[in-house]
């Protein structure tokens, strides 16, 4: 093989290696595990150093919102096991779609001592209208 072709290939390999490294590092730095509410409650070796994503339904009657201080507290229920519930606190604005029974996706850390999930992000999904809804009516 010619020398210059070798040099080009070497440079390309270097780039590809760099990209591979970036991707792997990106995953280990920013990857977030999905957990169900039940898993968070029972799993004792939950990764503490990194965030966890959890989804569940907002329990009726559990919503407390302090608009002045932008502090939202509520309970979420496991989407399958209805007796597993988790206390959540979130500092920020209450989203529009956030209401009783709404499905929420939380990202944050579980504070084991207070048994409270401290959410850093909160995404609420309203049961939006799908095409099937019309058909069912």
């Amino acid at each position, binding site marked *: 093989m010619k020398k210059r072709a070798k040099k080009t290939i070497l440079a390309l390999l270097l*780039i590809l290696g760099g990209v591979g490294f970036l991707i792997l590092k*990106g995953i280990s730095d*920013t990857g977030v595990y999905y957990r169900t509410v039940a898993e968070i409650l029972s799993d004792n070796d939950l990764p503490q150093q990194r965030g966890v994503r959890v989804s569940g339904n907002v329990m009726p009657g559990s919503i407390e919102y302090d608009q002045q201080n932008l502090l939202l507290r509520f309970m979420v229920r496991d989407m399958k096991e209805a007796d597993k519930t988790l206390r959540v606190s979130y500092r920020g604005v209450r989203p529009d*779609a956030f209401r009783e029974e709404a499905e929420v996706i939380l990202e944050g850390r579980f504070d084991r001592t207070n048994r409270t999930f401290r959410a850093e992000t909160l995404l609420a999904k*309203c049961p939006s209208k*799908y*095409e099937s809804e019309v058909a069912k009516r």
Partner: protein
Amino acid sequence: MNMVLLGNLSLAAAFAASLLAMMLLLTGLMRNDLRCIESGRRFLAGVAVFTSMAALALSRLFMTDAFQVEYVASYSDRALPLFYKATSFWAGQKGSLLFWAWVLSLYIALVTWNTRRETRQKNTPYIYLVLAAILGFFLLLLNTVSSPFTLLSFTPPDGQGLNPMLQNPGMIFHPPTLFLGYIGFTIPFAYAVAAMISGRLDPGWLRKTRRWNILSWIFLTIGIILGGQWAYVELGWGGFWAWDPVENASFIPWLVSTAFIHTAIIQERRNIMRVWNMALIVLTFLTCIFGTYLVRSGVLQSVHDFGATGLGGFFLVFLLVTGIGSTILIAESYSQLRTRHSLESLLSRESTFLFNNVILLAIAFSTLFGTVFPLISEMVTGRKLTVGEPFFNQVNTPLFLLLLLLTGLCPLIGWRRASADNLKKNFLFPATLAIAGAMVLFGTGVREFYPLAAFSLALFVSATILGEFAAGARARKRLTGENLLVALPRVLWKLRRRYGGYVVHFGMVLMVIGITGATAFKQEKEATLQRGEAMTIGDYRLRYTDFRSFQDRNRTVYAATLDVTRQGRPAGRMTTERRYYINAEQPTTEVSLRISAREDLYLTMPTIGSNNEITIRAAINPLLVWGWVGGGLMVLGGIMAIIPSRRRRPTP
């Protein structure tokens, strides 16, 4: 006439015509019968007539509030303004699909017209055949699982209305422009496949599809920018890009096609990288289809999700067939495609193109990887590990900076092989400027590496582009004796293909500046205010002065007014709203924006309390306006590059 009947019949006729075209073309190819091929061409062109009729029927149904049609009932209601009724056409999956097929058939009709005197050529019938097959696929879906003309068993008194978030001009044109781009790449793909099947592997196919490529790229660019703009002014979370799966689905083909457009230049000039280009155009088309698949299949959760629709399987099969078929074709023609002479030097313009390609593809790959990563990790480890915005930012930022560096290096390095002398001379000015700029920024307090690198690279690239403009003007001055100010626009116009490219690059530089400003130096603050209270953010003080509510067409509006002062001086008044649409469960927030060259002040009102105390979310996005300007320049440069030079009569 009954529009539902017309729609159904037209769709069936369109499908039949595409099938007939395929059969005629195949027969013509087998028997080597030009008459057969010619009638195949005509049937293929004729599909456009039927799809146009179907499109007309659907818009007519929207206009007349025909709520017995399921699709109309799902996306429109009586109170919807006429403009939005017309554009609800593509608000859902079925209409989008009809739009796809319609536009594709129009594009195809144009191709059949442009090639009407070339049917004798070996590759032309194959181009038609590939196009007919792809069009046929979409028409098959429209006739079976995804017909927009399906009726409900009853007629609801009113429709469900269009999602209020989609009632925004940016959102109206965002999907169709993206589609125009996605669909456009079908044409070069068909040319490429036809070239491989027929064995006519000269760069002719590249030259003939250059405008299609760039035009589709322009549409993709516009679509992506409009999407970002929509997210920014309508969604109200203060950002413009969230690396959402569907955004990624439009970004990946953009990256791959950008790579392709660059190496296509190399093949045209030097007739190398032929295998590479074949692979890239195939990849562009596949990622376009994959993007559509991601949106339509519901495999990934996204704000754009249309819910699982059962279309996924069809797209997956189509994707697999096209992917495997193209791979086999490339493998078979590999021996004819590969070129003996390759890159001559690591330090040549060609190799900067190659590296630009590798980096663009790397960004595309990491974006794709991050998008489908939750699926992969669940399959491999059984645990759902997911990545989001931080992942994409962390991985792609260094790659983008590298790309920016190459954008600046490329014009400085000569074709084939650059000499050290030539390099020193060309580098001096841009490099000095970049270093000086970095030092000034460092002195004024910008200490983080990425913003520092981004801004100084932006300077570097701008300087090289400026250098190219100046060199062009000077060369023309020498040649014609014109004044520099006259020579510059003339040389830009004369060599618009080349300078259009530089305008695109400069647009990208501005975009980098805007994005860097708005991400690295963003300020955000949330506060709840009673009337008369104020909050501060950056140099601004916002005092809540007025609240009112009123009824407006199909919505109730609550509006809060804030007096703004900047550094103690009055800076006008801003009003932000919450709107409750009669047909929607959720209110929408209306963003209030104060745009300046320096920074955007961005206000939304996410909550209104019982005593009209309001929660205000304020953000300052420095330099963001330059990002939009840059986006505009990218589009402009693209258009510049495809304006045809003097009309030539086609040789009969």
